[in-house]
């Protein structure tokens, strides 16, 4: 379909050729025309349009799973009948579908950036409260875009691999490193580590032995935490080992053994129970979205 081939086909044309540019422009115009056309779609047609698009997108993966796919297929092998032809087509389309999904997701990623720009530009233009912070945000975004792109661009030449060594860096490489490694990564780490303070405060204020459930939760958490503390579990286990004197039953009372038993017997099984429950829910929701029965999915 859209596979890259050296011989020109309906779907592909030689690099930088007039034929390719013509097809690109025509396809873009058709795409934009459809977009404009959809703007005038009647209200009652909207829901079916979204439902059809959603259904056919999901149909590919359902068919790939359910349809017999040929194994040990040789290069240039012709399909043996229509069933195998569909199997070949499903297999060959995989890279295109995956690629399309990546591109579409990447284009939709931009939505978050667009939203951020919209809010902060509005705040600056209207000089709303704290508009200065919006200037800081946009300035940092611009700086990162400049240095990030310039750094990548500097690696595209023949010296690309050499830039893995900081001794060969130029201004833009230092700029990117300072912003990315020096600031962004450190701030990312700081942002996430702040939660430790809140979790400590929450544990201190909320962890009370008030009910059976709370007591079980607290007890398990305590055993898991203590078993993770090598100094405590080491001391405990050494004491048990010397007291057991080879008695395998007493050895079961080592802290690491108890923690392992809880982990393997109750923790894994209870999480598996949760996981099965969630899995059934996800499967049901997947089907509902695919068939546009879920209002948050394919409805309009």
């Amino acid at each position, binding site marked *: 379909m859209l596979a890259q081939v050296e011989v*020109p086909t309906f779907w592909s*044309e030689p690099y930088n050729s007039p034929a390719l540019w013509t097809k690109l422009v025509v396809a873009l115009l058709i795409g934009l025309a459809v977009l404009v056309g959809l703007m005038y779609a009647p209200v009652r047609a909207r829901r079916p349009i979204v439902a059809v698009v959603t259904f056919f997108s999901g149909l590919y993966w359902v068919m790939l799973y359910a349809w017999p796919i040929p194994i040990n297929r040789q290069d240039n092998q012709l399909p043996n009948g229509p069933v195998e032809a569909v199997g070949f087509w499903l297999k060959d389309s995989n890279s295109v579908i995956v690629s399309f999904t990546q591109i*579409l997701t*990447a284009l939709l990623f931009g939505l978050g950036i667009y939203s951020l720009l919209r809010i902060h530009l509005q705040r600056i233009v209207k000089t709303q409260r704290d508009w200065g912070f919006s200037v800081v945000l946009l300035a940092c975004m611009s700086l990162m875009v400049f240095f990030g792109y310039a750094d990548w661009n500097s690696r595209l030449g023949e010296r690309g691999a050499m830039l893995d060594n900081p001794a060969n860096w130029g201004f833009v490489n230092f700029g990117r490193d300072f912003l990315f490694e020096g600031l962004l990564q450190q701030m990312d780490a700081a942002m996430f580590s702040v939660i430790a303070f809140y979790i400590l405060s929450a544990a201190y204020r909320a962890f009370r032995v008030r009910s059976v459930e709370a007591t079980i939760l607290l007890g398990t958490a305590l055993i*898991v935490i203590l078993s993770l503390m090598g100094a405590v579990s080491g001391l405990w286990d050494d004491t048990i080992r010397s007291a057991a004197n080879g008695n395998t039953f007493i050895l079961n009372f080592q802290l690491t053994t108890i923690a392992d*038993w809880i982990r393997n017997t*109750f923790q894994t099984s209870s999480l598996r129970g949760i996981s099965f429950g969630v899995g059934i829910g996800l499967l049901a929701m*997947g089907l509902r979205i695919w068939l546009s029965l879920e209002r948050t*999915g394919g409805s309009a």
Partner: protein
Amino acid sequence: MKYEDYLIWRMGAGVLATIGLYSVLYKENKLYRFFEHVFLGLASGWTLVALWTETLQASWWDKMIGTATQDGKVVNGSWAYILLLPIGLMGYFVFSKKHNWMSRIPIGIILGLYSGQQIQVWWNTYGPQIAASAKPIFPTTFTSLTVPSKEGLTPEQIAIINGNVYTSQAVTNFLFVFTVLSVLSYFLFSFDVKNKALKFSTTSGRYLLMIGFGAIFGSTVMMRFTLLIDRMYFVFDEFLKQGILRR
């Protein structure tokens, strides 16, 4: 400037940003707000860069217009990739009051592609787990209550021990299977049940669930404290001790 000197400046900036972000622990303040916006700006800027350099350039642009390498290899361009641009643009109609329904077309495509995978995903994930949950709950030997010590035994003797189910193992396996089923029943029968056996099962499920949550809490605490320790190490050891004081 030497690279080592540059590293000190780089770390210094990171330390300043860390202190700025931590200042929120005292109260919301201007310094925190400043660094919060720096963080958002840098993160969104990098997302823009990476989406192009790591994904769109190779997966979209190059495939769409083709490529010509220095060794003379020419790859054709596939014009149909341009059609993704208008489809992607439809997502941006989410901000339009009149046409925001159109944003559901690209989102519907992504959701459709996601939901279509769920059948395959389900069996791959849960098939082996269902099999692993079916454990023997009856002992096959009563020679010992617990699993005997394997120290000093021959591989054949160890194989015999490993092949048997001892009473303690059978009890553990029963508890495992019971926990899976009762937690699952707690989820499936979340409405008010009249059947006594089912009620016992769902109540047990709720208690057993707490063991899972307790373990999750223990692990979460470990993670959060580790991230904090990493920051403290960065500020006090890497920057202050090894960077500033050692110079």
